[in-house]
C-alpha cells in the first residue's frame, strides 16, 4: 500500500510539473543524443583501429638462409615464450608470397627470386599480442644469432594505439561531462519544482511529514524524466545511425560504424538512473535543510 501511494504521489507530481519536466526531458535528450553520437563513433573507431593493429605474427629475417642455420634458428625460436607456430619462407617462397598477394602485376615475373629475403613468420599467442609483450619478444629474437631483423610494424601499432588511447580519454571526459550536465539539469528541475511547492512542503513539515515522504515523489519524478529522455534519445540515435550507415556511409564503402549491443544500452540506462537519483536526492535534501519555518516568510 505504501509503495503504491508513494508511486502515485510521484506520478501526480510529474503530471503537475509537466511543463518543467518537458523542458528538462528535451534538454537531456539533446545532451544524450550528442553523447551517444560521440560514443558510437568513438567506439566504432576504436574497434576499427583495434582490428587493424592486431598483431598475430612477427617476421624474422635471417642473415644466412642455409638449411642448418635456419633449422637451428627455428629450434631457438620455438623455445621463446608466446610463440604459437613457426613457418619458414625461403627466397623462392617469399617471392611467391609477394606474387600471391599482389595479383595482376606481371613485371614481378622478371625479378629474380634471389632478390627477395628469406624469412621466418612467427605466429604469436593471443596473450602475447600486446605491444609491451611484442617488444619483449622482439628483443629476445634479436638477441639470437643469425637474426638480421625482427619486425611487427611497431611504428604503426604505436601510432594507432596512441589514437585509441586518445579516443578512450576523450570518451571518459565526455562521460564526465555527461554526468555533470545531466546531474545539473535534474538538480535544477527538481529545485524549481520544490520552489513551486515550498508552501506545501512547509505544511507537510508542520503536520509531521518525514524527509523521506517529501523526497521520494521528487526522486520518482526524476526517474521518470530520465527514463523518458533516455528511451527517446536512444531511439533517435538508433534511427539516425541506421540512416547514416545505409544512406551515407555504405554507398561510399564505409561501414565501420558499429551500433552498441543491448548490454551497453542497459549499462548506460542504469548509470543515468543512478545520476538522476543522486542529483534529485541532493536537490531535495539541500532544499529541505534551507527551507524556512512556516512562521517565516
Amino acid at each position, binding site marked *: *500500500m*505504501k509503495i503504491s*501511494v*508513494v508511486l502515485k*504521489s510521484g506520478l501526480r507530481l510529474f503530471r503537475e510539473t509537466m511543463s518543467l519536466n518537458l523542458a528538462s526531458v528535451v534538454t537531456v535528450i539533446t545532451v544524450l543524443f550528442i553523447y551517444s553520437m560521440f560514443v558510437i563513433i568513438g567506439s566504432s573507431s576504436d574497434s576499427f583501429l583495434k582490428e587493424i593493429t592486431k598483431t598475430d605474427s612477427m617476421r624474422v629475417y635471417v642473415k644466412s638462409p642455409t638449411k642448418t642455420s635456419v633449422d637451428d634458428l627455428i629450434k631457438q625460436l620455438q623455445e621463446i615464450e608466446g610463440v604459437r607456430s613457426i613457418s619458414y619462407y625461403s627466397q623462392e617462397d617469399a617471392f611467391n608470397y609477394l606474387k600471391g598477394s599482389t595479383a595482376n602485376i606481371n613485371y614481378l615475373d622478371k625479378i629474380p627470386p634471389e632478390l627477395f629475403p628469406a624469412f621466418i613468420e612467427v605466429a604469436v599467442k593471443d596473450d602475447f599480442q600486446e605491444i609491451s609483450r611484442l617488444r619483449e619478444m622482439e628483443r629476445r629474437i634479436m638477441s639470437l644469432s643469425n637474426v638480421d631483423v625482427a619486425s611487427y610494424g611497431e611504428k604503426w601499432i604505436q601510432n594507432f594505439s596512441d589514437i585509441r588511447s586518445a579516443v578512450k580519454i576523450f570518451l571518459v571526459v565526455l562521460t564526465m561531462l555527461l554526468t555533470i550536465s545531466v546531474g545539473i539539469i535534474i538538480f535544477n528541475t527538481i529545485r524549481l519544482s520544490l520552489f513551486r511547492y515550498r*508552501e*506545501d512542503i*512547509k*505544511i*507537510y*513539515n*508542520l*503536520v*509531521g*511529514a*518525514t*524527509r523521506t*515522504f517529501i523526497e521520494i515523489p521528487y526522486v520518482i519524478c526524476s526517474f521518470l524524466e530520465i527514463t523518458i529522455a533516455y528511451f527517446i534519445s536512444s531511439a533517435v540515435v538508433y534511427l539516425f545511425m541506421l540512416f547514416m550507415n545505409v544512406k551515407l556511409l555504405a554507398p561510399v564503402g564505409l561501414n565501420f560504424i558499429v551500433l552498441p549491443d543491448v548490454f551497453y544500452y542497459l549499462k548506460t540506462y542504469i548509470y543515468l538512473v543512478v545520476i538522476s537519483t543522486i542529483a534529485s536526492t541532493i536537490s531535495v535534501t539541500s532544499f529541505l535543510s534551507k527551507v524556512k*519555518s*512556516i*512562521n517565516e516568510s
Partner: protein
Amino acid sequence: MIKLYNVNVSFFGEKKALDGVNLKIAPGEFLYITGESGAGKSTLLRLIYADLNPTRGIVMVDGQNVSNMNHRTIPYLRRSIGVVFQDFKLLEEKSVFENLRMALEIYYLKPKHMEEKIYPLLKKLGIFVKRDTIVKKLSGGEKQRVAIARALINEPKVILADEPTGNLDNDNADSIMRLLLENRDKGSTVIVATHDQRLMEHFPARMVELKYGKIKHDSLTGSTQEKGEDDED
C-alpha cells in the same frame, strides 16, 4: 506533559523573546497563554512544536527533550501536536478537502479512509458543504475552521492554538472553544494563545500571562516571575 525549564529565546542576540520561563503543563490541561503583542506567546508555542530551539534552557514534551531535537525525530513529535495559526497557514489554491488530506497523506492512508476521517470532522465544524471549495473563496471564519480541522484531524495529544478565534464572531468563537474543550475532555492538552478577555471569562481555565518574555502571572500557582529568576540551572 509539557515542561519548560529556565527557557530563554533571543533572536540574533538581541532582545529576549522569552526570558527565563519556567512552566509545567499537565496532561489533559487547558491553558491560556495571554499577554500583549510581542510578549512571547507565539515563541512559546513554536518551542513546543520544535519550530524553534531555545537559546538556553530545556523544553520537554511528552518526556522528550525537544530543545535540540534531531531533524529526523521532529516529524514524529509533530504528529502528536495539532497547531492552529492566527493566519491559518492554509494553501489558498487548494480545496478544503485537499488541505485536510495533506495531514493524512503522511500516514499513507487509502482515499476512502481519508474521507472517513475528514467528512465527520467537517460536518462537526459546519463546513462539510464547502469541502470542495477552494480555500481562497472562503470567509475568514470558514478558513479558521479549516485550520482547526487540520489541527484536529489526527486526534493529537497536544493542541496549540495561536489566536484561534481572532477572525470569528462570538457565536463561532464559542463553538470553536467548545470543540477545543471537547478535545481536552478526550485527553488532549490544549494551549490557547489569546488576548481575548471575553473568551477567558466565558471559558475559564488556567491562565499564564507573559510580559516582555517573562511570566507575569500564572493563575494556577499564583506566582509572578521576578527579575533575576533566570539564573543558571
